[in-house]
């Protein structure tokens, strides 16, 4: 079922196409970023169907409130992933969600998602993923909490029982490691 070609546009052209509400803009946006955004959403939400709803909600919000994106202040993906994370965190913290889902603890959740989905991972970055897994575990744990669980650094400090400064240092360390991998 996988389509052979995915639409991809340079970021400036993509931004322009979205501003003009062109169909090509929405298709490219989805093809380029749906998997990355879904990866974040599904890890926070933990529920496949709900995560799909949230992905739709995220794209609709990105599409409709695109005026609030300012390319001078950062990359498109940075803005979008924060939209996705905020919507997901709001959902997770809403009353009806807390009442309906069995809470899993953090360590198992990320792992379980990855175990369930090992076949759907982007093959091009498989090698990279292994390298990510090899990051300093304590640094990655903090980044996972923030990036894939929607914690603030203050909440992460409380969760892990470590000082706020240490959380910040570990986040920075984790990202420095990522920079070595991706930049």
């Amino acid at each position, binding site marked *: 079922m996988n389509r052979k070609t995915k639409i991809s546009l340079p970021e400036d052209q993509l931004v322009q196409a979205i501003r003009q*509400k062109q*169909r090509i803009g929405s298709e490219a946006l989805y093809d380029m970023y749906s*998997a990355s955004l879904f990866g*974040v959403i599904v890890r926070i939400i933990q529920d496949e169907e709900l995560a799909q709803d949230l992905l739709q909600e995220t794209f609709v919000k990105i599409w409709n409130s695109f005026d609030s994106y300012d390319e001078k202040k950062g990359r498109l993906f*940075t803005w979008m992933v924060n939209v996705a994370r*905020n919507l997901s965190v709001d959902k997770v913290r809403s009353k009806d969600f807390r009442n309906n889902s069995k809470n899993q603890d953090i360590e198992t959740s990320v792992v379980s998602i990855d175990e369930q989905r090992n076949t759907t991972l982007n093959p091009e970055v498989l090698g990279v993923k292994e390298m990510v897994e090899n990051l300093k575990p304590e640094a990655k744990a903090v980044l996972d909490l923030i990036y894939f669980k929607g914690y603030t650094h203050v909440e992460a400090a409380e969760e892990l029982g470590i000082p706020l400064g240490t959380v910040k240092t570990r986040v*920075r360390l984790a990202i420095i490691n990522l920079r070595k991998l991706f930049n």
Partner: protein
Amino acid sequence: MENIKAYIESGVLELYVLGDLSTDEKLEVERVLETYPELKTEVEEIEKALQGFAEAEAVEPKEALRSKILDSMNTGAAENDIPVLPITKPNSSFYKYAFAASVALLLLSLFALINLRSQLKDSHNQIAVLQQSNQKFTSRVNYVEKQLDETRQSLNIFHNPEQYKVVNLKGTPNAPTASIMVAFNPAKSEVMIDLASIKMPANDPSHQYQLWALVDGKPVDLGVFNAGNDTTGVLKMKSLAKAQAFAVTLEPKGGSINPTMEQMMAMGAI
């Protein structure tokens, strides 16, 4: 440069990219980025790293989701988008026109009111004039009716010669040219003077003529009259059933009880 290094090492830029700052802190970072462009490359590096991380951790959503989500995004400016019309401001101009219309209406009403008021005043004047002329006309009609009545009475005398005895009184040496006609109806005890027939010297305001009847040798008062002003109709005098002659004397105003024989002006026998 020490400060910039410390700023970078504080980890605040990572939290900025992660969206994990309060609004104030976020604005502060943006202000610092404006001031130190070299920090922007640092932010870009962090963004790229996190994007790469997300790509590495990407999870492909179900294929079917793609068209569903794309359909919920409102695309196709040409076919789907309702053209955004510039919103005209109806309010300001509407109230402006409404105000102008109100003022115009007010002025029009005032003008009409003043106009009506003056018309009403004119009407009142006309009514007053009409009433005045109506009064004049009524009194004129009354006067004419009275005259007509008197004329009828005098005509009556001539129409009924068998009932009325017409007596011509001739002037005495006191007034040789004087004459007066008296009509006498013994059946109705009526004595009348034909005013048109009075040819007597005009009396002054302190004197009046007095008519007498001679009944069996005695003078009987029949009332006073003036000579000169009223010349139409008849003047009804006091009642009398029997007489042999009539006489007129000039007496002080109001008349006397007995005739002043020296002032006898006219007399005539039946």
